[in-house]
């Protein structure tokens, strides 16, 4: 056992990277070994993340259209022309793209708020002691575990104006007096948020639930002796204690929603209403309907840049904050 592992260790150490990368020789032995171990992972990242990103950025400065689909490398270099075109609000495409970015922000923020509220509520409920807690947890996880294409199509049926169960339910409850169009017109973005949040809140729930479970019971006992009621205990113990996990949840939900394709694509179908055309869907429809890959790539890079900028700002803000309460 030991012999095998030491043999593996020494054979890893024997790999001579320094021959190809002179800078590598300047690292200490330990660091060199670490890099060798990281190599397979890095190679994977390179293959499935970095190369497509770099390729996308490259395409975005080339005039790739249908004529250059099979020889994209021969497409003319157009500098920032693609960016100028898609970002120019005076053209219809630019206007639509800006509008789609606005809808994307609404989609992300709306989903974030809704999933957080739903997830936190569910997590708090699950954290209570009651019979059937395990079954409830399994049930609550279903929306996230179930194949999203199937559930989204079912939502699509349920939201039909005439035949959908949602409208007939709301009508019979007297909440609305006549059927609402959920998947058509300006309401669409809200329906999208609703449905997407439904598919995503279990993830938030399970993360917050894990966070709740790691809060020592004694803090609540101490607080109740200190005179804190249920709300104050939530306000002064639970919520601050959940801050580290919440920070992660917020970032993930925000970014994942921004680039989510499945929900709008499946829910809104072949003919998505303007209001539901979030950027990723618009980019897809735009680029593929007319082989405008240069411009499509430019839009993708803009979306990517916005997402990255938000993530970085957020991280900076987070690390400026001092939260020692977590397990960091």
């Amino acid at each position, binding site marked *: 056992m030991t012999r095998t592992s030491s043999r593996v260790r020494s054979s890893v150490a024997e790999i001579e990277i320094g021959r190809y990368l002179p800078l590598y020789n300047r690292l200490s032995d330990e660091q060199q070994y670490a890099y060798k171990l990281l190599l397979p992972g890095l190679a994977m990242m390179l293959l499935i993340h970095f190369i497509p990103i770099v390729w996308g950025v490259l395409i975005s400065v080339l005039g790739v259209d249908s004529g250059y*689909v099979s020889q994209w490398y021969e497409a003319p270099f157009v500098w920032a022309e693609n960016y100028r075109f898609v970002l120019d609000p005076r053209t219809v*495409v630019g206007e639509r793209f800006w509008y789609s970015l606005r809808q994307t922000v609404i989609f992300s923020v709306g989903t974030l708020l809704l999933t957080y509220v739903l997830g936190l509520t569910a997590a708090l409920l699950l954290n209570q002691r009651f019979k059937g807690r395990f079954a409830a947890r399994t049930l609550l996880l279903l929306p996230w575990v179930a194949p999203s294409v199937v559930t989204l199509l079912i939502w699509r049926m349920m939201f039909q104006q005439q035949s959908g169960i949602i409208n007939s339910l709301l009508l019979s409850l007297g909440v609305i007096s006549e059927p609402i169009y959920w998947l058509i*017109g300006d309401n669409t973005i809200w329906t999208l948020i609703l449905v997407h949040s439904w598919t995503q809140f279990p993830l938030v729930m399970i993360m917050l639930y894990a966070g709740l479970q790691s809060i020592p019971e004694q803090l609540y006992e101490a607080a109740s002796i200190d005179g804190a009621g249920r709300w104050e205990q939530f306000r002064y113990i639970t919520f601050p204690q959940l801050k580290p996990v919440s920070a992660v949840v917020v970032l993930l939900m925000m970014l994942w929603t921004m680039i989510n394709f499945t929900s709008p694509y499946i829910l809104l179908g072949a*003919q998505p209403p303007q209001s539901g055309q979030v950027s990723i869907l618009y980019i897809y429809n735009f680029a593929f309907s007319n*082989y405008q890959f240069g411009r499509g790539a430019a839009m993708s890079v803009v979306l990517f840049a916005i997402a990255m900028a938000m993530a970085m700002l957020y991280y900076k803000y987070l690390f400026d904050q001092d939260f020692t309460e977590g397990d960091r």
Partner: protein
Amino acid sequence: MRNHTRRKILATTGVATAFGVAGCLGGTNSGGTTLETRYMDAPGLEEFFEEHTARFEDETGIEVEYEFVGWGEAQETMLSDIMSRSGPDVHEIASTWIPEQYDANGWMDLDSGSVVDELPSTDLFTDGALDVATFQDTLVGIPWFWGPRAYQQVDERIEAGGVEGTPSDWDGLLDQAEAYDAENNYFAIMGADFEPIRNFAMFLWQNGGQLLTDDDGAPAFHDDSGVEALEFYADLYAEYDVLPSETIEWGAADIQGAFTGGQMASTWGALGTVSAYEEADGNALDDLSVSAPPAGPDGDQGTFFGMELLGIHPWTDEPEAAAQWIDYLLQAEPNAAVSNTVGFLPTNPDGLETDYFDNELYRTFDEEVFPHARTYPQVLGWGEIESELNSTVFEVLQSAVTGDLAAGDAEAALERAASVAEQTLE
């Protein structure tokens, strides 16, 4: 010692890989000729190809492999074939994608080289079909099957609603719709969820307009006839209540289902609708009557036709065999069989004489509806214009249904779409 072993392993692996790669590349050549072919998925095609590839192999010794791709994924799948220059030898062509795919060097010129001798003569086809098949003076595909959209009704149901005959113009349509009063009160539904541009194009043509100018150099859909056509389409929902507002969410399958299932008295559809109707329990072809759509104030009974073609990808190693296979498929019997299966008319006129199309209804389609039929212009950039128009029309219809459509909105929307089209066509 260890180095020796490692070298040996590497050598073995290398040899094995080389064989493997060679096997992949050349495997199809060993023995006889094998063609790879791919078609848009439709019910019944599997059986058709099973039978006819066997028959073709008996005749020629060429083995044909076939697979299907759904309409949803077809465009992307074909794009990745074209980008990687690999994939099937023969592929079904959707006419709307011809310009972009041809521009991307996705199709072989069928009027050249060794293939022209093997393919059916272009004399076989009508000019209309060849127009679609030819892009930038190149024969991109061989017309396979096609079909116009017709006004279809179940006479019995129409009469039960207190109406007689088919409407010949827009006013007639509105009069009938108003008069129509039956329990299954859906009348003349065409839907809007699936490619609403097709319906708009039909109204446009019926009103004497056209999508692009004659030279395909500029948009023409936004002139008065176009605005009127779009407003008429929207008013069918909002103003005249011909199209019940909830049907705006209906997809093609919903409409077809309602028509075949008896909740709807009339619809606009191609032969596929006819087949679906016939196949449903208790229905017979003779219940149906079809006609060209009603004419607009300034035009004819214009309607839309769709066409599918067969093409050869330029990376094929077997162009002659591919051409032979296409030639086989265009013979009257197979051509009629496949057309009947997918709900279209055969492009080979002899196909219409087969048993498959031995019914008055098909003749009506061919002789009375087809002459009014047109299709989209074949021009580079049409894809973008089409998707723009789809969104535009759909937005206008949505506003009509939700009550947000104000006077002038339709015109403004078409103007915007036209500006996109202008930019695209430049």
